[in-house]
C-alpha cells in the first residue's frame, strides 16, 4: 500500500487542497515531503517524536528480543522508507542487528507472499519465494541470536510467521510499533510484568 500512497494516490485522487498541510502537533515539524498527499507514514511520525525527545521509552522492556528488520519491498523500492523504521527500532530496543547488505534496504527480498499471493493453497510458492528472505534471517539468527523479525507491513505480519516457522524456527515476527508499545512509559501505568503478548518481561520470569 505504501507504494500506492506514495506514487499513485495523489495523482489518482488529488489534489487534496481541502486538507491542511501535515504538521506534527507535538513537535511542530512540518512534513514537507508529504505536503501534497498529506499522508505521513507512521514511522516518519514516530521517528520525529523520538528525535524531539517527546517519548519516554524504556528500551530494556524489549531486552528479551534480538531484533532484525525486514524492509518491505515497496516502502523501500517505491518510496525509500529505510532509515525511519530503523531509527524507531534502535530507540525502542537494545539489540538490533542488520541482515547482510545484499538482502536489505533497496536490495531487500520479498516475504514471498506479496501482491496478493498470501493464500493458503500456494504455500509451496510462498516458502520458495520467501527462501532468500528466510535465509538472510537465518544468517543473523545463527550469528547474533536474532529471535525477532520486525517489519512495517501488515501482510508481512501475516506472511512471515509461517515462513519463519518453516525455514528458521525460533524467530518471531513483530511490527515496529509493537516495540514502541512495549517500550513506551505511560503516565499512571502500573508496573508491567509482561509485554503485549503476555510474555514475561525481562527479569519478571520467576514472578509469573
Amino acid at each position: 500500500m505504501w507504494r500506492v500512497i506514495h506514487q499513485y494516490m495523489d495523482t489518482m485522487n488529488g489534489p487534496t487542497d481541502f486538507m491542511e498541510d501535515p504538521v506534527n502537533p507535538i513537535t511542530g515539524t512540518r512534513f514537507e515531503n508529504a505536503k501534497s498527499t498529506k499522508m505521513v507514514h507512521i514511522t516518519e511520525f514516530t521517528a520525529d517524536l523520538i528525535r524531539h525527545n517527546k517519548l519516554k521509552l524504556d528500551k530494556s522492556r524489549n531486552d528479551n528480543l534480538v531484533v532484525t528488520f525486514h524492509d518491505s519491498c515497496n516502502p523501500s523500492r517505491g518510496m525509500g522508507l529505510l532509515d525511519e523504521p530503523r531509527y524507531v527500532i534502535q530507540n525502542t530496543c537494545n539489540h538490533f542487528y542488520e541482515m547482510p547488505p545484499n538482502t536489505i534496504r533497496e536490495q531487500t527480498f520479498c516475504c514471498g507472499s506479496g501482491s496478493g499471493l498470501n493464500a493458503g493453497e500456494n504455500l509451496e510458492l510462498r516458502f520458495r519465494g520467501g527462501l532468500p528472505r528466510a535465509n538472510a534471517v537465518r544468517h543473523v539468527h545463527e550469528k547474533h541470536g536474532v529471535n525477532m523479525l520486525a517489519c512495517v507491513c501488515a501482510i508481512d505480519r501475516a506472511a512471515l510467521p509461517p515462513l519463519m516457522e518453516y525455514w528458521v524456527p525460533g524467530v518471531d515476527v513483530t511490527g515496529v510499533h509493537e516495540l514502541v508499545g512495549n517500550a513506551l512509559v505511560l503516565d499512571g501505568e502500573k508496573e508491567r510484568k509482561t509485554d503485549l503478548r503476555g510474555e514475561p518481561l525481562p527479569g519478571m520470569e520467576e514472578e509469573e
Partner: protein
Amino acid sequence: MNVWMSLIVSLIAIGAVVVVGAIGGLVPALHPVFGVVIPYAALAVFILGFIWRVLRWAKSPVPFPIATTAGQQKSLPWIKQDKLENPSTRWQVVDRMILEIVLFRSLFRNTRMELYKENGKLTYGWQLWLWAFALAFHYSFLVVVLRHLRFFLDPIPLPVTLLESVDGFLQVGLPSVMISGFVLLGAVGYLLVRRLYVPFMRYISLPSDYFPLFLIASIAATGILMRYVVRVDVVGVRELTLGIATLNPVVPDGINFLFYIHLFLVCVLLAYFPFSKLMHLGGIFMSPTRNLRGNSREFRHVNPWNYPVKTHTYDEYEEEFRDRMIEAGLPVEKQPAESGSATDTESAEDSAE
C-alpha cells in the same frame, strides 16, 4: 528456439550480409549502389527510424511517478537523503541519469546468487565482470565511431586527432595500433562467450541477441583486417566517405572489396538499429523508473487520462451499516428515520475527482 538454432539463424544472416557486401565490392558496376545509394538509404532509415521510435514512445504519457527508489527518501530534515538513488529535484535526477548513462550505475550493483545445497545457504557476491565488459564494449565502440569522423570531416578536427593519439598511445607497429578496435572485439567476445557459456543466458537469448553481437564483431574484424592486414587504399576510401558527407558522392576505383563488406555491415547496423533492442540507447533516457523524481507526496504528478471511477461513497456505506453503527455508538450523518430517502445515491460517481 534452442541455442543452436539461434546461432545458426544469426550466423546465416551475418553470412548473407557479408556475401552481399562482397558481391557489391567485387562487381565494379555495383560500386555506386554499395558505396553511395545504400549508405544514404541506411542513414536515412537510421535517422528517421530513430526519431519515429522516440516519438512513438513519447506519444504515450507517463501516468504515474513510478521511480525505482534505490535509496533513502527525502523525509525528515535530519535523515540523510540518498540524492543519487532517490532524487527529489530535477538536478538530482540529472545526476542519477548521468551515472546511469555514463557509468552504468545499475549494472554496477550486479551480484551473483549462489546456493550451497550442503548447508542450504544462499550468497550474493558482487559481480563486476558484466559491468566492466559492458563499459569496455560501449566506450570502445564510441571511440571507434568518433575516430571514424576523420573520414567524414575535412580538415580533421583536432579532438579527433587527439583521440587517435590517445587511442594509439602504445606506439607499436606501423600503422600504430589503435587499442579501441581490439578492446571492442575482445569485449564483444566476452559478451558472446558469456551468453553461450552461462546456462541461463543461453536460455534467454534470442537470435536477435546474437545477431548484433556478430554484426559488431564483423565490423570490428573487417576494420582491423583493413588496417593491419589487407591495407586498403585509405585515400580512395576517404574520397568516397567525404563525398558522402558533403553530399557530393564520388566512387573512386580500386578500393578493396573488403571495404565494401565493412561498409555494408555498417549500413545493416544502421538500418537495423531503430527496430531492435539497440534502441536501448534512446530508451534509457526515457525510462520512467529512472528519470522521475521520488518526491511524489510533495508534488502532485498529473495523469492526463485520469478518469472518474465508480466508488463506494460514505453515504452508501452508512446506508448499509447505519443501524449497526448506531448500536456501536458511532456517529452517523442521518438518523434512521430519514434514511429511506438516501437510497438514490447508490451509484454515485467518484466525488473526489
